[in-house]
């Protein structure tokens, strides 16, 4: 949940609670006040009636007084003195509804005879007043709530804008870009500190990354020359006439190892160069032709392993990529399909308008499919391979956003590339 939504929600929640409690107590206070007032009026009437009887020794005319109705009834002597205050509902024929009344019943004596007086006071006016007050309150509440929430939202949004800007830039920041992370200065102390910390941190990481990259690049390049010297000297050594069998075997092993090292180094340099985006010259490549070319080149190897190629579909597809990289990509995919195949197996190729799918028979992987695209991952039994082929595929796919995916379906390894974003 966004921080703005979150604070707004908390704000609303607190406001609702405060307003509810406020409304409730307001209601209670108002009610108490009204009852007090009404009761005062009833008692005033009662006092007046008793005073009138005491002074004139006769019953007053019943309609006078502040209250709406006064009912007098002679009561039996043994009923006893009584004074009761209560609420009641009386049906009003005019409004055709029950109307709330406050009622005071008391007994008084005239010439020793008891009379029961009931004074009724309509609460209707008060109810109306009450209702309109509550309604006004509700309106004030709603308006205040909306207004405050809005103001709060905009103030927060304004205050947090630098934070969102920083967040957006940090998200877009990539180490492989050569640009440092530049953030907008903020006058909020915390955000300014955050910016400074982030900038210092990414600057440091960027430097370390560059140093490491430079080191790797230099190392790879510098290794080439000594490798060439060793390899060439060994080759010259091999031309000697008087080598013993053992010496020859050792020379052979040394030479093979040096060769392996050279190839490994070459592949690593290639990977680094792809990472450095050194292959920026793109051309429109007929993928179907390139695929066919690579298939022809590898035909011999497939025949040796008795591998059948089945072409399910080969639609003309034109992609915009670097020719060299595209060749490396396709040949590595095919080589992978040959290498991890079984003798007498099959390779199925399906080239659709936007997708290349290469399936090959072979044993299921023991590893996680995710690690398939990592460097130096090679199925145990092929010690000769460097396991860098699919790492290259992965790097190139990343460069061109080809979304490589791997699945194992019905005994077939399935590798898919999506060329949608690169169609020319």
């Amino acid at each position, binding site marked *: 949940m966004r921080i703005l939504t979150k604070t707004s929600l908390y704000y609303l929640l607190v406001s609702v609670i405060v307003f509810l409690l406020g409304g409730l107590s307001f209601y209670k206070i108002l009610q108490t006040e009204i009852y007090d007032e009404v009761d005062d009026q009833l008692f005033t009437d009662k006092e007046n009636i008793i005073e009138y009887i005491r002074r004139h020794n006769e019953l007053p005319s019943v309609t006078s007084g502040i209250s709406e109705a006064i009912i007098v009834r002679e009561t039996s002597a043994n009923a006893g003195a009584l004074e009761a205050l209560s609420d009641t509902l009386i049906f009003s024929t005019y409004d055709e509804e029950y109307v709330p009344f406050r009622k005071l019943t008391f007994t008084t004596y005239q010439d020793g005879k008891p009379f029961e007086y009931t004074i009724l006071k309509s609460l209707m006016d008060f109810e109306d007043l009450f209702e309109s007050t509550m309604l006004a309150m509700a309106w004030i509440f709603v308006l205040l709530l909306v207004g405050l929430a809005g103001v709060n939202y905009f103030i927060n949004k304004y205050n947090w804008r630098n934070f969102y800007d920083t967040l957006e830039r940090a998200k877009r920041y990539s180490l492989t870009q050569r640009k440092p992370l530049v953030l907008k200065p903020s006058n909020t102390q915390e955000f300014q500190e955050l910016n400074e910390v982030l900038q210092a941190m990414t600057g440091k990481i960027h430097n370390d990354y560059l140093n490491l990259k430079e080191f790797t690049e230099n190392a790879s390049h510098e290794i080439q020359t000594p490798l060439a010297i060793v*390899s060439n*000297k060994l080759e010259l050594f*091999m031309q000697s006439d008087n080598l013993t069998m053992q010496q020859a075997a050792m020379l052979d092993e040394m030479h093979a190892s040096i060769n392996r090292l050279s190839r490994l180094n070459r592949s690593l340099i290639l990977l680094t160069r792809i990472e450095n985006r050194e292959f920026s010259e793109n051309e429109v490549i007929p993928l179907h032709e390139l695929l066919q070319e690579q298939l022809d080149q590898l035909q011999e*190897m497939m025949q*040796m392993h008795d591998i059948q190629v089945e072409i399910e579909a080969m639609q003309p597809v034109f992609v915009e990529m670097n020719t060299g990289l595209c060749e490396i990509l396709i040949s590595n995919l095919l080589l992978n399909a040959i*290498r991890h195949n079984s003798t007498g197996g099959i390779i199925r190729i399906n080239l659709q308008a936007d997708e290349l799918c290469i399936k090959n028979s072979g044993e299921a992987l023991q590893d996680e499919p995710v690690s398939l695209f990592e460097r130096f991952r090679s199925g145990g039994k092929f010690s000769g391979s460097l396991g860098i082929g699919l790492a290259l595929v992965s790097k190139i796919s990343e460069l061109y956003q080809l979304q490589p995916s791997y699945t194992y379906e019905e005994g077939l390894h399935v590798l898919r590339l999506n060329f949608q974003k690169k169609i020319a």
Partner: protein
Amino acid sequence: MKLLIIEDEQGLNASMVSYLQQGGYTCDAALNYRDGARMLADQHYTCVLVDLTLPGGSGLDLVRLLKKNSPDTGIIIISAKNALDDKITGLELGADDYLTKPFHLSELNARLRSVIRRRNFNGQKVIQIGSLEVHPDSAEALVQGRKLTLTKKEYDLLLYFVTNKNRVLTKDSIAEHLWGDHIETLDSLDFVYTHIKNLRRKIVEAGGEDPITTVYGMGYKFSF
């Protein structure tokens, strides 16, 4: 045939000189830009092997110089930089080939031969070793006048052997020559064996002697 090798790395320079001298070339060596430029001005060479990163200047400048002053000299660039740009620039300037370090001396020799063959329009186009004739123009080979039916790979292999005759060629260098980067694939060394076996058989069937000998399991040697 006279060659100039301009390479600042002493060890590498010496190896190339040594290998190529054994192949019958006359070789001069320069270790820096200044010496290289001076020697190019003084003498005429059939082919020049030049490193791109030299003390005192860029090998690309030497290529430009050569193209201007002596356009019929073959040029092979040798570089530790596998940078595509350099390769393209070098070839655009008129270099005949480009080799990335590290390379096999036998591969260098093969490339050199091919450059000289392509440049030497008036020279003899047929390579003759005993009763074996190789016609690089038509990609044909004959033994005692009889044409060999060779696959593309077998022909390439034969040409590689012929260029590096009497040398021990390692299986690795043969595999790399024939398949380039695809060598990584499983069993490429077995392919080498199969191809050599077929080539031997075809030459013998055509009436020639088996020209290929196995050297201690280290590699193969061709002598006719």
